[in-house]
């Protein structure tokens, strides 16, 4: 008797749940991810809601369906093509994923919502760009959307910030960040935190002045601005000549995404080169906050601390890198750190609450400097005028690295190059580049490598060399895999312990700055990396 009643109750429960599900079908609309959802990072494996997957910048996924044992069976399941030209740089984007839909930005400010099951587009956006773009025409790229609720956010080559309705690609608001005619553009993926869309700006090769802005997602109103080059009399201005004209064209672009610590309420952002790039005579001093990592109060944009990697830069070694936040044991004690693989060839570990430098060691053969002094300043041996230091694109660049917890490995794409710098005073014309010299690069001597660094020492744990200095980004997964892209178009998987290559696929175009993503869909783990004008999804064979 009891058993049959139990059975009836269970059936009723099941029916009730079914009814609730059916009712849900015709009920409330989907609201899209909240700030709390993004905070949870990789907790929902079907989502990739922000540039790095979570706010820490580690780009380390917990997914384990694809393993070192089976990754060799990865196969393409669909390819999407953009139908737009790229001027040699192609996709630099990270797709966002939610509910089986990919939200992707591309060259020339095209953007799409794409079905992750089939690679077919729901909608496409194309912007009517002005035909007199400045910085935006030499690098017509975009690194991705930000997402909050049913809104997407994207910056443009004519230096605007747009909000879209992600359901149909319609523009909800459009605000100007800066005047593109002076030399500005915008290319980064916005960082969306609680009620703020945070963006930076490009233009360090022109007579511009960089900033980091926060905007209200609902209205597009600016909430705060942090100027990366101080105004006359402001803190940091003592590292510049006392000349407002020099400050007004100080550079300091902020063209990469940043990381966020919600407990400290700090945003970590990289700052680019001072202008002019190679000619430093008219800007004596350290030129803060160029080539620095800045930690800003997320509510006000005020500077809490900074660390300058390359004072008085003469080599265009922007520090626009993903800051990687991790909680690790440091010399026996738990420590909240931020790690940066820098364009100047050094790997850094800092305390992310205070900015104290914990480690700074070269990860390439750079002869520019081999060590930092007691104050954390590089001891410069060769500023590039005497030949053979890393080229302007640097020992690494904006392509994201990855941190593998437990093994405490910082894995990045390294470039070994040999260049001589010849500075020359430039003319300053709004809308025209002012590099301030030329660089001779020895093409014969360059190569690239995927390098895994032990974060506690900066020592090389392993490397996989590439034939040319490369720009592809890196992602790791908890099953012990490293995924990366290279300059010859290979999308590859490696064993995180040894660097042994376990799988590769030729995508047909150099992979420039884009990094892999991974997510679950219908019970299958998908991995992908945007390459040139294509996006291909890979998975293990279905059973």
């Amino acid at each position, binding site marked *: 008797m009891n058993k049959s009643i139990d059975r009836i109750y269970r059936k009723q429960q099941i029916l009730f749940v079914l009814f609730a599900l059916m009712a849900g079908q015709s009920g*409330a609309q*989907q609201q899209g991810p909240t700030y709390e959802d993004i905070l949870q990072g990789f907790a929902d494996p079907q989502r990739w809601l922000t540039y790095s997957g979570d706010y820490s910048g580690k780009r380390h996924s917990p997914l384990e369906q694809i393993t070192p044992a089976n990754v060799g069976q990865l196969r393409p399941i669909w390819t999407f093509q953009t139908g737009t030209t790229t001027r040699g740089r192609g996709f630099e984007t990270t797709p966002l994923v939610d509910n089986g*839909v990919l939200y992707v930005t591309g060259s020339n400010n095209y953007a799409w919502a794409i*079905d992750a099951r089939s690679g077919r587009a729901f909608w496409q956006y194309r912007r009517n760009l002005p*035909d007199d773009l400045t910085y935006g025409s030499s690098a017509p790229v975009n690194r991705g959307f930000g997402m909050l609720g049913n809104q997407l956010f994207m910056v443009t080559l004519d230096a605007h910030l747009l909000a879209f309705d992600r*359901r*149909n690609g*319609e523009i909800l608001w459009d605000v100007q960040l800066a005047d593109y005619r002076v030399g500005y553009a915008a290319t980064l993926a916005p960082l969306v935190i609680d009620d703020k869309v945070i963006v930076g700006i490009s233009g360090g090769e022109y007579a511009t002045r960089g900033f980091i802005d926060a905007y209200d997602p609902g209205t597009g109103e600016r909430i705060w601005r942090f100027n990366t080059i101080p105004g006359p009399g402001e803190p940091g201005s003592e590292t510049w000549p006392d000349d407002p004209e020099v400050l007004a064209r100080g550079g300091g672009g902020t063209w990469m995404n940043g990381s966020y610590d919600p407990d400290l309420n700090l945003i970590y952002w990289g700052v680019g080169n001072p202008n002019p790039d190679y000619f430093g005579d008219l800007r004596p001093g350290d030129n803060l906050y160029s080539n620095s990592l800045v930690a800003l109060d997320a509510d006000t944009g005020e500077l809490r601390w900074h660390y300058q990697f390359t004072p008085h830069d003469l080599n265009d070694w922007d520090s626009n890198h993903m800051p990687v936040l991790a909680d690790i044991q440091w010399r026996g004690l738990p420590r909240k750190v931020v790690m940066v693989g820098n364009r100047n060839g050094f790997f850094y570990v800092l305390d992310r609450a205070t900015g104290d430098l914990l480690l700074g060691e070269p990860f390439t053969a750079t002869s520019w400097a081999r060590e930092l002094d007691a104050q954390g300043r590089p001891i410069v041996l060769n500023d590039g005028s005497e030949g053979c230091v890393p080229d302007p694109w640097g020992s690494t660049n904006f392509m994201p690295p990855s941190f593998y917890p437990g093994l405490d490995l910082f894995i990045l794409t390294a470039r070994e190059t040999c260049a001589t710098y010849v500075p020359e005073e430039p003319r300053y014309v709004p809308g025209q580049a002012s590099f301030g010299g030329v660089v001779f690069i020895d093409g014969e001597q360059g190569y690239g490598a995927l390098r895994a660094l032990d974060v506690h020492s900066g020592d090389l744990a392993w490397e996989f060399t590439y034939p040319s200095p490369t720009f592809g980004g890196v992602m790791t997964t908890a099953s012990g895999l490293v995924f990366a892209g290279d300059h010859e178009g290979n999308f590859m998987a490696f064993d995180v312990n040894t660097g042994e290559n376990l799988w590769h696929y030729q995508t047909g175009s150099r992979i420039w700055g884009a990094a892999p993503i991974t997510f679950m869909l219908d019970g299958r783990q998908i991995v992908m990396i945007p390459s040139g004008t294509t996006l291909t999804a890979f998975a293990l064979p279905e059973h």
Partner: protein
Amino acid sequence: MQKLKIMTKQPYFVTAVPGITVLRGLLLTAVLLIPALALGQAVNPLDSSPRAAAAGGSLFRAQCATCHGADARGIAGIQAPDLTQLWSQPGQSDSAVFQTIRNGIPGSIMPPHAFTDTETWMLVTYLKSLGPADSMASYGGDRGRGARLFDKNCSGCHLLNGSGGALGPDLTGIATRRSRQSLVTSIREPGAVLVRGYRPVTLVTRDNLRIDGTIKSEDAFSIQIMDRKQSLRGFRKKDLARLHYPDRSLMPEFNQATLNDSELEDLLSYLAGQ
């Protein structure tokens, strides 16, 4: 005497003294061009000429229709847009359309074209003639009542000026793009014309779940829809038990009982006032 001053500034007047009618024509051009050039825009010299529109139409069909469609409304599968709505875009001008035809759109499949100035203006004039004939129709209803009617009946599915739903098309500026009659038809008989991107479909999954939506894209093996909850959803056809393409739009019909003629006028006035 002032007229002579203007003329003598033109270099081609230095040697010859042309006849009076030519002078007047050139003067008119100078008077037209000087303010326009001061604004940085060229003026369409063939504006509203029916003969220019006809010639432009021939040129369009020969040179542009392969991508934009013989009716200029775009072709499914090619990324060339519907050109019949060009002048409803804010800030649009004959001069801007001229430049787009002349220079193309960098990074897209729209190439530059080496047509002469006259040929290009003919194309501009033709495209301008394609807009709705009574796009400047006037509506005599109460906009305030129309706003309330819109909020109650329409905003759940339609965007207007950045807010509302996404199941149906964005209605911002719709009255400048569509004739009065077509707007009335869309409201009274929504199934009469099913627009690409909003064609209805009913899917039944292998678990017997029925999903209604609008088709965003489809191929032999997959279909991409927006469902009634306004979510974008993609399906592999092999995961579906059935697909059905109804004749009826997802938009409900608003007949006299649900929206009488006076209320309809209020609603149209509200839409046109935007």
